[in-house]
């Protein structure tokens, strides 16, 4: 992983027209919060990584769904 140090108001540019800027840093240490500004073309989706983790967890729940309700009703 590429690691860069940036100050407030400094940015990185990724490929065509995606800019990620440090807007604000609050707090210190592990509880510090970094506010980022992201400028990207309308066609680029910007998502928190947790969204992918939540969906993957929901997919594992779905994979454990054992039967359609109609089938259960027919069996009983």
């Amino acid at each position, binding site marked *: 992983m590429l690691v860069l140090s940036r100050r407030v108001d400094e940015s990185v540019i990724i490929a065509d027209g995606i800019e990620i800027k440090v807007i604000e840093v609050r707090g210190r240490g592990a509880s510090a919060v970094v506010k980022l500004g992201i400028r990207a073309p309308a*066609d680029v989706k910007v998502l928190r990584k947790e969204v992918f983790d939540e969906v993957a967890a929901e997919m594992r729940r*779905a994979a454990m*769904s054992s039967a*359609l309700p109609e089938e259960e009703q027919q069996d009983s």
Partner: protein
Amino acid sequence: MMVETTRFGTLEVLPGHVLTFPEGLLGFEDCHRFVLIEKGGSKFFRWLQSLDRPELAFVVVDPRRAVPGYEPVVTRWELDSVKLRSAAGAVLLAIVVVPPDVRKMTANLQAPIIVNPETMEARQVISTGPDHVIRQPIFDLFNGAPVRKTG
């Protein structure tokens, strides 16, 4: 070709019926080939059976039929990845969770699958619509009624 499945036994699958997911599904990135199975005579529900893992199958529903007005937020790039010209031309599938209490069954409107019905290429996308929730209750479908949107 003949395919072994845990739920449905041995199935004959025509090559033209195989859905190809180049990126796999979220959480199941190693599973690239699936087939849709109609079982139980349901109007709304089908199974998405993996051809790579016999035990892996998902209940799926067409979210457009389940939730009137639903249309996922899909980018040009995502459409291009399955060679679709427009989102309107995509067949949609939403993954359903059926918990032990089936009244609490939900469909994942946040991460629908878009399918190009001509090439059978498919991709799971994250839709950023504000009411595209990960757990949309859909039990009303069993009364033949479309589902009211959350929120």
